[in-house]
């Protein structure tokens, strides 16, 4: 981070290697779209590089980048909600057809689909990226208790979904 601050753009390689996966999963979890997640990832690193002066030395750089990624993903998420697509064809197109998940595991994919954007975000930060609840509270800007409650609720939903699927089979 210090080298990047001094203007060495090549220092971004190390930061990218360390954080890109987490940023991609976080963006994908919120947006449920691979292309949009890729755009958000690009946007995140560009903003991080352009605003490196705002980074406070001594704080968690991974969390700082996660906050930028989260803001970029929610900006995209809210923009997507505002855009109304008009389809003049006679065929009915399923609006969820472009929605996918970052995992290929069918069980996990189905379970993640049952969650809200906020729940998916917390699950991805905690379970997939290994952040602690305290760190997630800092990234999301909410109390630790709320984060724990949201995570438990999300896991409960996922467990219920997997059990129902198992029962149906």
């Amino acid at each position, binding site marked *: 981070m210090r080298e990047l601050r001094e203007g060495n753009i090549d220092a971004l390689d190390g930061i990218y290697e360390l954080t890109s996966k987490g940023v991609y999963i976080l963006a994908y979890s919120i947006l449920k779209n691979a292309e949009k997640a890729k755009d958000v990832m690009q946007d995140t*690193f560009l903003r991080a590089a352009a605003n490196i002066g705002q980074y406070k030395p001594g704080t968690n750089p991974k969390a700082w980048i996660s*906050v930028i990624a989260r803001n970029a993903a929610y900006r995209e998420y809210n923009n997507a909600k505002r855009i109304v697509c008009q389809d003049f064809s006679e065929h009915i197109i399923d609006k969820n057809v472009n929605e996918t998940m970052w995992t290929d*595991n069918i069980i996990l994919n189905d379970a993640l689909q049952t969650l809200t954007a906020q729940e998916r975000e917390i699950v991805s930060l905690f379970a997939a990226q290994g952040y602690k609840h305290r760190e997630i*509270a800092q990234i999301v800007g909410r109390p630790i208790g709320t984060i724990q409650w949201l995570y438990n609720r999300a896991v409960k939903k996922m467990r219920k979904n997997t059990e129902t699927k198992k029962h149906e089979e």
Partner: protein
Amino acid sequence: MKNNEIKRLLRSEADNVQIPDVLTEIKKADLTEYKDIGTEIVSAHTPKISLRVKLLSGAAAVLLVILALIIVPSVSFDKKVYAEVALGAYTEFEITINKKEQVIDIKTSGDNAKKILENISYQKQPFDKTLTNLITACISEGYIISGEHITNRDIPIAVYCRYADGTARIRECIDEIVNSCCDKAQGE
């Protein structure tokens, strides 16, 4: 699937995710367009409570305490037994009253007494009114025969007041009620 299994599965899937490479594009881009970040990490989440909210919650707490001080004693006084009156007119009633001379409860012995009590509402009702209703019901059911040869002294009534000054006054009140009920029944 248990919570830990879900967590383990998510972690292993996250490790295997293939991410697109955007690093070369980032390095080529003009960074001046991306200066509107406005994001910083705070050390911990501390909800800020305004002075207005603090004052309002303080006032609400004081109000609650005052309400509790008013309501709780009045409720407990209403339930505190001041005197017990036992009425034996071939069937028995034990009436407990509070200091406001309102009926707290009536206990009965025997089915006949229960039957009479079914038609009388007595909870928190004035004692004199309840006793009038009870004696009137007893007369109409034939448990008390009102006639020249029967006076209030023929109805065994015991009064026990927990305060010395109350017994005589209640006894007097009961005598008046019984006399008036018997007179009324006799007149009819």
